């Protein structure tokens, strides 16, 4: 299986391509809704422009508008919430959450067509989402963010939340991870034993079972404690929910991770992630918060490992794959549906596709590597955890 072809085709040339000039159609999470409910406008740099998020004082609703005032270009994020409207700091023009000009205090009347762009919003799982569609259409039926009951339950911890901006990489890099079984071993010190992807409609799922690595300490790996089962799905181009069940000391710890991003420019994006943990029987709020913080810390370590790879790697449109790699090309075919006009979405982008990896070879090789690491450590040759 690992035999090389005897035909010499010459060295492979990487096609780096260029990141798409447009931004994906879909719901994008901007962060915890609570963060935007402090009475002040918040600037968000996204989709190659700037947006402003504010809470209408009277109705309490969250709104998203273009940040720049269509009057003279003032930045509304530096303005003030006045009633249900947002006032520009430049000339006090007032903008409602629907994008209509709600008043110009120094003018006799508001120009009849005075409107700015109001972005469609959604609050779910205590998070704020904004709908982006270059064609300006509303989300199709069924394209929404699923509700996570744990986000509203006393039986679960509160969300932890982290935000990090990645410069010099297109957000496709993070989506590629959905199919990348081997990187879990080499980058994240995990040990996948089962790995399957399913793409269908606007959802891309990853079903994985991962074992702890005997040559790693808890700090080195996401699944130090025990066998971990994970069901992760992207709902659209940028919002992933990952349900995890970890066996630890006779109990099963249930965790929900969110991994989401929004694009800033074609080669930068803001990555956000958080965790919820179901309280074990007898667990106090503090202990649950601690468990969630621990899960978030593991997640943070994982993303730091990914980020180090992204910062140093090249974009690659023609990855050279082996038999045991996941379906990178089919994942990108699925992902492309969000970058073309709706009328150009082809059936093969959304038809159900399943790919179950043969992990036999990888598991055997990885077992041997783990055993060798342990043996080397046992003989005191200073081989550290994490040595590759």
């Amino acid at each position: 299986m690992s035999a090389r072809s005897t035909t010499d085709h010459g060295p492979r040339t990487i096609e780096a391509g260029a990141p798409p000039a447009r931004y994906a159609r879909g719901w994008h999470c901007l962060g915890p809704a609570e963060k935007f409910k402090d009475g002040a406008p918040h600037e968000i740099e996204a989709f190659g422009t700037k947006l402003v998020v504010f809470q209408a004082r009277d109705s309490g609703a969250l709104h998203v508008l273009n940040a720049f005032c269509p009057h003279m270009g003032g930045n509304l994020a530096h303005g003030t919430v006045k009633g249900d409207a947002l006032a520009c700091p430049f000339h006090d023009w007032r903008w409602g959450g629907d994008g209509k000009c709600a008043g110009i205090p120094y003018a006799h009347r508001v120009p009849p067509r005075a409107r700015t762009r109001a972005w469609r919003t959604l609050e779910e799982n205590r998070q704020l989402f904004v709908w982006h569609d270059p064609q300006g259409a509303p989300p199709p039926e069924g394209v929404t963010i699923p509700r996570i009951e744990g986000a509203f339950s006393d039986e679960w911890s509160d969300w932890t939340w982290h935000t990090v901006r990645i410069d010099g990489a297109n957000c496709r890099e993070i989506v590629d991870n959905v199919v990348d079984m081997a990187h879990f071993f080499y980058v994240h010190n995990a040990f996948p034993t089962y790995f399957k992807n399913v793409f269908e409609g606007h959802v891309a799922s990853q079903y994985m079972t991962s074992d702890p690595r005997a040559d790693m300490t808890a700090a080195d790996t996401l699944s130090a404690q025990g066998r971990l089962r994970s069901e992760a799905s992207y709902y659209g181009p940028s919002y992933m929910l990952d349900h995890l069940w970890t066996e630890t000391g006779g109990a099963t710890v249930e965790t929900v991770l969110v991994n989401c991003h929004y694009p800033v420019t074609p080669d930068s994006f803001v990555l956000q992630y958080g965790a919820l943990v179901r309280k074990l029987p007898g667990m106090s709020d503090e202990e649950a918060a601690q468990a969630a913080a621990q899960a978030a810390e593991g997640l943070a370590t994982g993303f730091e490992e990914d980020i180090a790879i992204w910062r140093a790697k090249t974009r690659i449109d023609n990855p050279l794959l082996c038999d045991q790699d996941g379906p990178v090309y089919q994942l990108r075919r699925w992902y492309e549906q969000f970058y073309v006009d709706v009328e150009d979405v082809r059936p093969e982008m959304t038809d159900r596709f399943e790919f179950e990896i043969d992990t036999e070879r990888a598991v055997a090789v990885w077992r041997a590597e783990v055993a060798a690491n342990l043996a080397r450590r046992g003989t005191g040759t200073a081989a550290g955890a994490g040595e590759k």
Partner: protein
Amino acid sequence: MVMQPVTCRTCATEVLVEKRSLPHTTVQWTRATSHCPELAGHGPARVAVCTRLRATIEQAVRDGALEVAGDDE
């Protein structure tokens, strides 16, 4: 290796299947999953496998109707 058509013994849906080895399976659907008794009604991609289609594929391998790459190795 090419994708080979397999017709599910339960719902008669035809899918395209590739087996690179016994543990590996690729399934490409070419129409909606709404006639599948195990997938219909669930969110898209939220069920990992239809066990009846899976059984059909495994039977096709046993019957020799579905070629598995690497068999001759």
